């Protein structure tokens, strides 16, 4: 509770959180209030914003507001799923290696650093290109989660290793707790705030990765995503036609979501790490 109170005292946190909650509620509540239809043409291609179509239409004549809300939903979904997978993988590997130490830790660290150095976008491109059909939004999110976990493992490992020699951990060991018991009961609770910060950043990374893949034409076949809207706008000459409504709003949405997540992360850092305050 104290923590929450402290959090809401930070203007950065309040700003970032309200921004994020705003985008989240547009994504969740949008379909209830708006008549979304991304499959049928509502007019001609690239119609300028009007009273009927607030943000005009895309290259197929589909209402842009419908596209944007659906795209935002997909992007947030990818962010949540990829972020959860990456954080879980990274936390498990980092906690286990950091606590165990020795050979297991060495092997895990070498493995983590290995995949940290190999650009994850490259692995994503190779994987996505090899599964040509059946590239669903969920599959893409899972692939992203499985390729971006590395730096959270590295970060969590460093924290867990610093807790390894604490007295309460030694006591737990003497009292006969197993490795898993110690890791989950006596180490993880100390790192929860840290893991939450990692999750926030992994979410942002997931959203950006999906958008990058979609820009390469490796996006999901089964849903509209913000990256796909941008890719469609680019490949269908929205830039040269001056149809700004076909890409500027999608750009603003991606940036807003990622920006709000970054702000939440830095404000958490300030609250959890008093040294940075002042």
């Amino acid at each position, binding site marked *: 509770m104290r923590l929450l109170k402290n959090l809401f005292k930070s203007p950065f946190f309040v700003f970032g959180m309200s921004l994020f909650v705003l985008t989240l509620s547009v994504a969740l509540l949008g379909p209830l209030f708006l008549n979304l239809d991304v499959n049928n043409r509502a007019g001609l291609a690239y119609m300028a914003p009007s009273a009927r179509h607030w943000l005009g239409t895309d290259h197929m004549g589909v209402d842009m507001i419908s596209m944007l809300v659906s795209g935002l939903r997909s992007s947030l979904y990818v962010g949540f799923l990829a972020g959860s997978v990456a954080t879980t993988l990274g936390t498990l590997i980092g906690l286990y290696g950091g606590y165990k130490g020795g050979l297991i830790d060495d092997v895990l660290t070498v493995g983590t650093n290995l995949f940290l150095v190999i650009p994850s976008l490259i692995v994503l491109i190779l994987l996505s290109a090899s599964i040509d059909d059946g590239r669903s939004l969920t599959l893409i999110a899972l692939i992203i989660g499985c390729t971006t976990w590395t730096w959270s493992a590295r970060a969590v490992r460093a924290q867990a290793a610093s807790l390894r020699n604490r007295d309460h951990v030694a006591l737990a060991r003497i009292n006969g707790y197993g490795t898993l018991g110690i890791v989950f009961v006596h180490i993880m609770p100390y790192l929860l705030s840290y893991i939450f910060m990692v999750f926030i950043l992994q979410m942002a990374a997931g959203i950006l990765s999906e958008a*990058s893949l979609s820009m*390469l034409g490796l996006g999901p076949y089964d849903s509209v995503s913000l990256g796909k809207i941008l890719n469609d706008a680019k490949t269908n000459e929205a830039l040269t036609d001056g149809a700004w409504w076909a890409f500027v709003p999608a750009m603003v949405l991606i940036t807003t979501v990622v920006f709000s997540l970054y702000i939440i992360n830095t404000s958490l850092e300030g609250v959890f790490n008093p040294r940075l305050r002042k």
Partner: protein
Amino acid sequence: MLDNHPTLSHVVGRAGWYLVTFLVAISINFFLPRLGDANPVDTIMAKVTDGLDAASAKAKEEAYLREFNLVEVDDAGKVKRDARGKPVRTSLGRQFINYLGMSVRGDLGSSILQHPKRVTAIIKAALPWTLALQLPTIVFGWLIGNGLGALAAYKRGVFDKLMYPLALLASAIPAFCFGMLLVYVFGIRLEWFPAVGGYDDGLTPELSIAFLRSASYYYVLPFLSVFLIVVGGQAIGMRSMCIYELGTDYVKYAKLLGIEESKILLYMFRNAMLPQLTGLALALGTMVGGALIAEMIFSYPGLGMAVLTAIQGNDYPLISGCTLLVTVSVLCANFSVDVLVGFLDPRIRAARQRSK
């Protein structure tokens, strides 16, 4: 012998580690595209078989199978056949060994899309553009970002309050989004700079004044699209690093001793620099990936465009050639940073000496 040269043994150790990483990277590069059933020969055959009779189609298929090293060849250079006269397919393991040998010799096979053309030739044409764009962006972005970050941490006040959110915003914009915006505003609306391409039509890449002038004109927007984002990201990292250093005991002690402020700043900068260098090495992969996608927005004639066309045309040899090259460059850059850190960081020397 190495024991007496802590820095050298650090370098040798890192070199060994990067060799292992390279082997893993090249295996990923080979096996991931082969997870699916897609086979380069089938892709080409689907395109060229129209209007061919069965016999010549078969002959053509065999020629392609040989070219892509998918069938066993005997000493006389003839395709081996099984009892039913079908060509014997090379096993995946054997293909991998061939691939390793070829890659080390710098042979990446031939492209499917631009068929007889070699992948290496395509990459050779694209690489200078990507290098010219990405190297200065990352190096200058890193330097300026770090300078700004240190300044913000030291000055605080209005400068920090203004710079910090701006830097956060800049680092949150995906490079390709920013690129699209630049193209639209400065390329198409205002027509200050050319929107797409790398040089004027009618010129050929060569070392002439006309070409260089045209190329530098086309350089501005792609450069900016990545540069500002790198600056933002680095400034944020350096700022928190420096704020941390400001609170350390040695800075307080130095202040109490009455040492000049500029001198303290220099000490601080040196200490905050090392983690930033390591951070650069770790972020390099993401940066290069982002910049490649930004290149596509401008149809810049670099690797990003090559990857994009390769993906659109299912040109697997070209895709994996480009990805291999990008991975190897990132590994090399990382290795150089590691070596540099080995020279700069006294702790590495000390740790080596202690463990002796």
